[in-house]
């Protein structure tokens, strides 16, 4: 980990600990006032606890040009980012994708081409709907490893991270507290429930937190749709396609709409926020991640609509290609944040 970011974050955190004015904004300040000295692991933990709501920047009397030059949201973003890259397994891949939107785009194009070609030349041994293009077995053969290997990678990284922040064995109490904070995005609420600072300097709005809730819950619904489809297929021997009034479709369509809306809003908001209050090195990678999620959900929705048209095979390849890229990049992209932030929330609940 770059000592520069950590030691600069430590300098700033020590100023905050002597000040404490921002105590009411989020979990970071109550956590830091419990301590007098900050080891590297403590700072990594605080960085992952930070939701980049930016309240503590706009409220700070010590931001530049003041010589104390406080910019806690930026420093914590840098430390957080570096903790994801340094704990990633395998190492080298992570840095490239986190930083570069172009690299992400290239992976998407390759995955798209790959699936297109597979569908074209290997094709299907006969089946209905989408399976007429790519057989169910083929899909399983591609996606099961593409899902499990990244998950394994994340598991390895998270264990490293958990050790570095001094995590204790998981208990239900801390777990529930953390899930409830994440479900409500409590740390993006500004402490007063009016949201965070982002698109209009020090104005508090709920735009960013609502967009994130749509994105996160939409994603989880889509995931649930896929899971329910898998169960229907294997447990109840009911293969796709499904009726409109079926669990996979209801979950998938509502989740897809939320995910498309949420990511569109996040992408629209992102250029309005001050780049200098995050980690500017990964801005492109973050934006590409948002657009990738948007592609996943929008192409999925389009498939529902265009299932019977000539567009279907292309759309299918696009959808499956973006889903494949999303899975493959999970450990090396912004997607890591959900896992790390959840871990940090659990750790915070353990210490509290």
């Amino acid at each position, binding site marked *: 980990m770059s000592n520069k970011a950590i030691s600069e974050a430590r300098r700033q955190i020590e100023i905050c600990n002597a000040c404490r004015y921002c105590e009411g904004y989020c979990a970071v300040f109550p956590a830091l006032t419990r301590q007098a000295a900050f080891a590297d692991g403590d700072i990594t933990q605080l960085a992952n606890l930070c939701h980049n709501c930016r309240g503590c920047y706009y409220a700070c009397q010590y931001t530049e040009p003041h010589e*104390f030059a406080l910019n806690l949201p930026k420093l914590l973003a840098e430390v957080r980012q570096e903790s994801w890259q340094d704990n990633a397994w395998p190492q080298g891949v992570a840095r490239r994708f986190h930083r570069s939107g172009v690299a992400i785009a290239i992976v998407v194009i390759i995955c798209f081409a790959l699936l297109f070609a597979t569908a074209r030349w290997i094709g299907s041994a006969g089946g209905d709907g989408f399976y007429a293009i790519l057989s169910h077995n083929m899909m399983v053969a591609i996606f099961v490893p593409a899902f499990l290997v990244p998950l394994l990678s994340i598991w390895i990284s998270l264990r490293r991270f958990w050790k570095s922040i001094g995590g204790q064995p998981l208990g239900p109490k801390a777990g529930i507290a953390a899930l409830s904070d994440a479900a409500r995005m409590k740390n993006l609420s500004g402490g007063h429930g009016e949201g965070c600072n982002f698109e209009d300097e020090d104005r508090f709005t709920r735009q960013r937190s609502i967009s994130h809730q749509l994105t996160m819950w939409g994603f989880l619904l889509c995931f649930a749709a896929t899971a329910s489809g898998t169960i229907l297929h294997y447990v109840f021997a009911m293969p796709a396609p499904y009726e409109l009034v079926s669990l996979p479709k209801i979950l998938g369509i509502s989740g897809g709409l939320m995910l498309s809306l949420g990511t569109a809003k996040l992408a629209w908001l992102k250029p309005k926020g001050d780049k200098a209050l995050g980690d500017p090195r990964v801005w492109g990678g973050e934006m590409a991640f948002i657009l990738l999620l948007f592609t996943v959900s929008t192409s999925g929705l389009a498939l529902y609509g265009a299932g019977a048209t000539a567009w279907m095979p292309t759309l299918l390849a696009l959808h499956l290609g973006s889903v494949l890229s999303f899975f493959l990049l999970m450990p090396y992209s912004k997607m890591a944040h959900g896992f790390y932030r959840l871990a940090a929330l659990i750790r915070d609940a353990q210490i509290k």
Partner: protein
Amino acid sequence: MTSKTEMDCEVVIIGGGNAALCAAITAAMAGVRVLILEAAPKEYRGGNSRHTRNFRCMHDGPLSVLTGHYDEEEYYNDLLLVTKGNTDEHLARIAIRGSQDSQPWMEANGVRFQPALSGTLSLSRTNAFFLGGGKALVNAYYRRAEALGVKVRYNAHVDHLVLEGDRITRVDFTENSKSHSLSPKAVIVAAGGFQGSIERLVKAWGPEAENFLIRGTPYNRGDVLFDLLDQGVQSIGDPTQCHAVAIDGRAPKFDGGIVTRLDCVPFSVVVNKHAKRFYDEGEDVWPKRYAIWGRLVAAQEEQVAYSIIDAKSKDLFMPSVFPPICAGSIPELAKKLGLEPEALASTITEFNGSCQAGNFTPTELDNLATKDLEPPKTNWARPIAEAPFYAYSLRPGVTFTYLGLKVDETAQVQGQEGPVANLWAAGETMAGSILGQGYLAGFGMTIGTVFGRIAGEEAAAYVK
């Protein structure tokens, strides 16, 4: 005269801190056109108000984040204690009573509150803390004011008010080194004290003031205050006095704010440049002694002192922004501080020899006193014996000056022959009437809020 539309206004408000903003919002809500002239650039707008954390609020029952009750008499008695009676009872009671309905007013205008910060529980009943601190309050007020149509000019320093008869007829100001003049119908001064001008401090206090640090904004230089006093407007408050506390000697010259305070004194031995003690470090709990140490240090040679503790006291007080100077022995510590090693060693040995056995209780007066020591340490006297040893340097940090404009209960400024018809003042600029001496935590913002609102209302009524 400038007639640009962006400077078109009926009321000019001088200053951009809490008092100015409360006046601006009130006047704009009454329907008059308001222009704020703020000397600081946008990043530093908000004067000393940007450094505050709470305001002291009367409440007859639970109110917002405040529990229990804090009534007018208790509040007024607290004020009498710190000012030793040096207050104007009528104005003081207006401020106190006004605080109660100011709290919901502040909330309605965007200020958000939170319970007392960790480490300040002693204030949780009397003081309402601003969520995010004073800069968050200032930001919220600027947004509110601008939404009401108030115009704001930054880097706009008022140089001179023309007083003709009983009226201000012109306001001269410099914006980015260009001169402008305006003739508004009414003017409100909310430009703070004069502690930002070391020159004026030296004139008032003496050459020692060269070594003072200023805890807040460098923009409160007293230019408008002295300009008016020179034209015969009545003053109030001791022109030679300022409120000063002992802060970390390494703090920046200006704008160091809250983080430079040091709470270690009661657990330490404090020596001057000659490594000699000069006052009872354990006289009372720190919040009550906070202010006298500014003067004590100001009276020492070169206006510097050193607070020395040992390992066992290190975690007894709120952390400071600068790490302490640390050494394995007292002589070594002395060398690092630039003190005479033998002198410091003998002061500490003498102190240690006079410490008595007994129970040490950091949170209250524990009567653990030295015996036969001059000056004594009357509480928390434990030997400085456990390595490593730590030291902080102390310097006087000025919070505000007492000299101000004399106002009546409508915040109207008083000239030689009665009130100036179209001039009001609010905040630190007139606080000397109420705070003649001492300081009551959170009262500065109370005075600014209550009299800012009064000034805004009166000026608007006059214009209409």
